[in-house]
């Protein structure tokens, strides 16, 4: 416990976290500090490319064990199931109607790639290894949650849902961040250590610094969201935003242990399950459930769950994963 606290404290005063805090503070104080949309997108492209590539290289180095398929399957199952849990919780804990609850639930089944990235960098700095293919698991978990949510709405009478059509399906599966993550994973896999050596000064050394700027930006956006959407954060909603990642992480832990993943891999499985989407799912919800309230899901995902995971969640999940997997 003591170790956990000191770990959390240490985690909290890293440049990465503090950059996020700076962003939130600047937004809430209504500073005009802002990062241009194009630059923010450029940073996210860099991070996706780098994390995918490094995952692929690690698979090339350690070979694929039989668990890859099972891990992918686990991710998909989690992504399908977590929204059902989230939905039930929301209906109990908050006043949200079916539509809003389903839209929020979709976010919690899917994943936040930045939370994943932040977790890998915590693992790295603690020297804990993890399976390189976890980035593929991350990609696999992006979409299924959306289907669950639409099913929840349809089951309830479907009013409000425009449902899933083939265009939307293609958009979700081929959404830019999935394609880039999976694509660079395969490039890393194909080119291996040799490829990595060529571009390491670009994708490895400056990685953490770029992550700082990106988190500064996320802080700015999250702070703006809190300033404008903060009033939706009634106690029940807020409690859900902290409780749900804990529940998700426990589910992830179960699958991680069952699969016999390394302690790093288990921690990442917990992080993926605990994190909530803020790129792919919100866009899909605008198309499929246009009448659901976007400030509910954006504020919860980016303004509550993301900071919770970033600051307390990740060190907690890493510590628990290590304890439980005997790492």
């Amino acid at each position, binding site marked *: 416990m003591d170790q956990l606290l000191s770990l959390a404290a240490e985690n909290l005063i890293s440049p990465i976290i503090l950059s996020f805090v700076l962003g939130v503070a600047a937004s809430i104080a209504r500073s005009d500090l802002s990062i241009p949309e194009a630059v923010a997108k450029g940073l996210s492209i860099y991070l996706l490319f780098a994390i995918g590539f490094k995952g692929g290289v690690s698979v090339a180095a350690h070979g694929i064990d039989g668990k890859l398929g099972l891990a992918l399957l686990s991710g998909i199952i989690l992504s399908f199931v977590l929204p059902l849990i989230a939905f039930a919780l929301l209906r109990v804990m908050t006043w949200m109607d079916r539509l809003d609850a389903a839209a929020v639930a979709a976010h919690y089944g899917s994943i936040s790639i930045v939370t994943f990235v932040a977790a890998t960098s915590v693992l790295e700095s603690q020297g804990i290894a993890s399976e390189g293919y976890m980035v593929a698991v991350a990609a696999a978990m992006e979409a299924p949650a959306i289907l669950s949510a639409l099913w929840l709405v349809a089951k309830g009478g479907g009013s409000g849902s425009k449902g899933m059509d083939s*265009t939307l399906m293609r958009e979700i599966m081929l959404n830019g961040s999935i394609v880039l993550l999976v694509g660079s994973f395969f490039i890393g896999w194909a080119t291996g250590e040799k490829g990595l050596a060529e571009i390491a000064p670009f994708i490895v050394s400056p990685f953490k610094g770029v992550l700082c700027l990106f988190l500064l930006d996320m802080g700015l956006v999250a702070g703006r969201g809190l300033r404008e959407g903060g009033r939706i954060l009634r106690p029940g909603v807020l409690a859900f935003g902290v409780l749900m990642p804990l529940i998700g992480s426990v589910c992830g832990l179960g699958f991680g242990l069952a699969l016999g993943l390394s302690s790093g891999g288990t921690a990442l499985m917990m992080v993926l399950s605990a994190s909530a989407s803020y*790129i792919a799912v919100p866009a899909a919800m605008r198309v499929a459930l246009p009448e659901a309230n*976007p400030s509910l899901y954006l504020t919860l995902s980016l303004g509550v769950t993301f900071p919770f995971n970033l600051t307390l969640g990740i060190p907690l999940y890493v510590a628990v994963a290590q304890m439980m997997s005997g790492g």
Partner: protein
Amino acid sequence: MQTHKAKRVEITIEAVMESRLTDALKKAGVTGFTVLPVLGGSGRSGAWNRSGQISRASGMVQVVCIIKPDRLDDLLDSAFAVVERHIGVVSVVDCEVLRAERF
């Protein structure tokens, strides 16, 4: 200079719906349109702005079509089918154009 009567339709719509709208316009036989970026805005669903955003969920674009007056109804019908359940604004202005053969 010889000008010709036309209608200028301006549709402010969520970025995620852009391709659905332009597909619908093409199906309705609208052959020309121009898409303008939008920085931010405010409406019944609150205020938004794009700075620092990476998700496409919260941005909008403006699609401008200039068409012959007699095509207006078709265009509005097909645009409306897309924007119907979404946030967004459709406005129409009378205008004059050069080179009418292009519309």
